[in-house]
């Protein structure tokens, strides 16, 4: 009886704990995975921890996150406490007004605060970087401190301060010896909230930082396209650190009470000194002087280079590369427009077209890029830049279909894109959850250009997709289809060739094909911005990145096809033997994306929304 009752009590608690901690346990488990896979456990390994500590971008981000959080917490706690004390002594109208204003940033969607700060810093032409991030964090942390401290101050006996001064304490001594100890719980609560808010802030940091200053959230977000288990390793390390702090916080007072009967002063003093030292170190190192070296600001997609190459460039050319990452061409463009200065950017073809059109980039100095001789010219000299003056290819690929050889026959493949409408594969298809790629599939299946602006053709493509959705019940998936296909979850999957290459590496049952109706080929390439002050260094950087050896390192690290023919040949031989997805096809039916005019773009996105709506 009592036993069953005890079990009845334990079950809900256990379920709740499992619900809360299961994802974290899974993550920690996979941080010790040998393979890069996020779903397949292939054996114990600590290599991702090694990778994490070797990743200078990540280490830098950890440093930025921790130091910004520490300093922002300190400053906002002092600021917020003083404000709360002052507020309690103010007239009622001021009190009310300030409290309401103070609540605003807390209630305000973070994105509004973020954009406001971004515009503000641009407006006063404050260079984005560590300082802007710190100021922004102080700004959004302070209201939380005020909210926590003010009620404590309000609850204080109004005569307390007078009593202290009456006994000879100056206003400063009164604050330190009487008022602060009284409101300490509120201050500590405020500081803890400020620290957590700052430490895991993404949105605001993303918009106000720049010049290579990134915190953990930004780096992880930009990595999420090509997720890498060192992120799990990092998260696990942070988790362990927090657990240690919590354990100390919980058990230290207990142990000390047992031993000394109270918390001895030397312990609290040690604690304060330790904290102060941390803040000072964080403060000093964050303002470490920029050596007078030449500086190059590079803006690349996340996880899109072998960072060792960048490091060796820094050494060889005695310069500093400020390396920042973005998650999509669109967000890159937003940051560029937001007043961030970069020297070298790596956008995709259609975005390169836009940058050229908007006169934001300058011609390359091909004399400084002799390594271009190894490049695949078939993907160059596109319509948006017929002489190929402005950009230098970095990675390229196609869109095709990954299929399970056990279920899909050679004959099925003859249908081209219309294989996606073959009733045999009903409910067995991943479509790529991207409006342009899906519309491309439909347009090509219908024999139109994927860059068409004719509403009639676009409507036809929409009908094709709706019909396919209704008859075939496909799953619209993003990058999660990559992992799913490694396990062979479905028979057909629309996929980028670079991802297909990685998938096929792990699953021998998969094949890859590109329909004869044509497909998309894409190129990402380097451009040099108009604001770049050291054109020579920028061109030298591009040259360095595409050299035979370095292009090889990049392609092996990233898994996408390099346009450097020598590097590609070597990789094909050493790393992707027999992998048919490690190729590029530029036939007469194949196209790359043009930059879309607004009307077509709107049409695409409204149709795509409708396709996905049901």
């Amino acid at each position, binding site marked *: 009886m009592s036993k069953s009752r005890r079990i009845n009590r334990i079950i809900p608690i256990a379920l709740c704990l499992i619900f809360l901690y299961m994802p974290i346990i899974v993550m920690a488990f996979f941080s010790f995975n040998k393979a890069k896979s996020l779903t397949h456990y292939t054996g114990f390994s600590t290599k991702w921890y090694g990778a994490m500590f070797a990743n200078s971008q990540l280490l830098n981000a950890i440093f930025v996150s921790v130091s910004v959080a520490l300093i922002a917490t300190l400053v906002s706690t002092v600021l917020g406490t003083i404000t709360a004390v002052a507020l309690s002594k103010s007239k009622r109208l001021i009190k009310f007004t300030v409290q309401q204003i103070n609540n605003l940033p807390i209630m305000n969607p973070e994105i509004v605060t973020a954009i406001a700060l971004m515009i503000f810093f641009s407006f006063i032409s404050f260079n984005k970087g560590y300082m802007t991030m710190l100021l922004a964090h102080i700004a959004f942390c302070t209201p939380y401190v005020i909210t926590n401290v003010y009620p404590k101050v309000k609850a204080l006996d109004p005569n307390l301060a007078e*009593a202290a001064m009456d*006994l*000879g304490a*100056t206003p400063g001594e009164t604050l330190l010896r*009487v008022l602060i100890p009284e409101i300490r719980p509120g201050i500590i609560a405020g500081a803890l909230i400020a620290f957590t808010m700052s430490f895991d802030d993404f949105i605001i940091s993303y918009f106000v930082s720049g010049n290579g200053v990134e915190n953990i959230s930004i780096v992880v977000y930009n990595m999420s396209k090509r997720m890498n288990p060192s992120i799990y390793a990092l998260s696990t390390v942070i988790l362990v650190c927090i657990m240690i702090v919590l354990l100390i916080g919980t058990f230290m007072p207990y142990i000390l009470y047992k031993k000394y009967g109270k918390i001895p002063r030397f312990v609290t003093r040690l604690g304060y000194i330790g904290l102060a030292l941390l803040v000072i170190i964080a403060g000093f190192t964050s303002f470490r002087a920029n050596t007078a070296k030449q500086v190059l600001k590079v803006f690349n997609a996340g996880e899109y280079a072998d960072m060792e190459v960048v490091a060796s460039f820094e050494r060889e050319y005695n310069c500093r590369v400020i390396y920042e990452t973005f998650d999509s061409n669109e967000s890159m463009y937003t940051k560029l427009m937001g007043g961030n200065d970069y020297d070298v950017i790596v956008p995709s073809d259609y975005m390169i077209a836009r940058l050229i059109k908007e006169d934001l980039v300058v011609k390359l100095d091909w004399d400084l890029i002799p390594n271009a001789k190894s490049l695949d010219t078939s993907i160059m000299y596109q319509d948006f830049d017929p002489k190929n003056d402005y950009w230098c290819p970095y990675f390229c690929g196609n869109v095709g279909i990954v299929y399970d050889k056990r279920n899909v026959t050679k004959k099925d493949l003859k249908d081209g894109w219309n294989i996606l409408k073959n009733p045999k594969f009903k409910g067995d298809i991943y479509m790529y959850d991207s409006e342009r790629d899906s519309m491309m599939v439909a347009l090509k299946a219908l024999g139109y250009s994927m860059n068409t602006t004719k509403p009639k053709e676009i409507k036809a493509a929409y009908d094709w997709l709706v019909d396919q959705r209704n008859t075939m019940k496909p799953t619209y998936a993003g990058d999660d289809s990559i992992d799913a296909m490694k396990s062979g979850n479905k028979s057909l999957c629309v996929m980028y060739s670079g991802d297909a290459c990685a998938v096929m590496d792990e699953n021998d049952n998969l094949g890859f094909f590109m329909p004869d109706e044509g497909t998309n080929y894409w190129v990402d390439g380097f451009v040099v911005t108009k604001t770049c002050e050291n054109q020579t260094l920028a061109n030298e950087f591009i040259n360095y990145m595409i050299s035979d050896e370095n292009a090889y390192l990049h392609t092996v690290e990233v898994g996408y096809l390099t346009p450097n023919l020598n590097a590609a040949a070597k990789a094909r031989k050493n790393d992707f033997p027999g992998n048919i997805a490690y190729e590029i096809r530029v036939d007469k039916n194949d196209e790359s994306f043009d930059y879309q005019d607004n009307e077509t773009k709107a049409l695409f996105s409204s149709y795509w929304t409708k396709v996905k709506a049901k």
Partner: protein
Amino acid sequence: MKKIFELDNLSKEFDGQVVLKGIHLDVYENEFMTLLGPSGCGKTTTLRIMAGFEEPSEGKVLFDGIDIAGVPPYKREVNTVFQKYALFPNMNVYDNIAFGLKIKKTAAPVIKEKVTRMLELVNLAGYEERNIRQLSGGQQQRVAIARALVNEPKVLLLDEPLGALDLKLRKTMQIELKSIQKEVGITFVYVTHDQEEALTMSDTIVVMNDGIIQQIGSPTDIYNEPENRFVAQFIGESNIIEGTFVKDFLVAFDNVEFECVDKGFEDGQDVDIVLRPEDIKILPSGEGRISGVVTSIIFKGVHYEIIVKTDIREYKIHTTAYYEPGLEVDLDLTPDDIHVMEPMGTY
């Protein structure tokens, strides 16, 4: 005796509201002075100006003959005991009392000695380690007094310090406070609205109303010779009667002329006459100069409160004897029982 505090023509305004209207007050060494008056009369403001928590809008504050305008509270040689004690909740009894000495960087053994002596003085020996929240109201009050006294101020300011205590404890503490004051021999300025408390403890009582000092005097002076109707009404109970000053040592009211001890008013002028309830004598019918009927009798513990109705007014009388309601009685007064004041409206 030496003057410690001199308040000279002190006025104070808060947001256009005048709470003190030109106060003149001298505080002498070693005296127990009480500021007495109803709430809002300006007594606490006066005390806060002396402590330095408020600056006067007009007038001067002299301390030991020196103008201390603008001197902050932490530089004044006075200490305050607050109405709600204002003890430091995060410190124990010892640390509360030691606070002022620690601020002055007194040597630790000296602090220990002084705090111990203070705790003995306020009967709290052995309470050093107690948490403030564990103490009763009376104990907290004693800690507050000890915390102020340990600094050996020249003047101790007390702002209704017994207001939060129950009646019995208040009575005990009144006596204790008085004896502490005698023992340490420093000046106390004590604010209260309780006239009995003021009469019990004070050397000098300052009666205040509406930002103005009504009368300064010893408890007996204030009680027996109130200078005006306000003081008479505020201090103890009294029958206040409008009458005529016939000539020196003779007043008339209720159609009877009475001999009195007062002189110096104009002959025939209107005056107010104060009769304390315990001074009126009840005599059998026909033996006194005023006749009336007992209309009510209420038992008050030490005495009865009797209302006697005459043709003209009702008299309130305190007596230890019992009189049946409805009984016809006579009332009479001796010259000592009659106190003549300027009439209401002029002071």
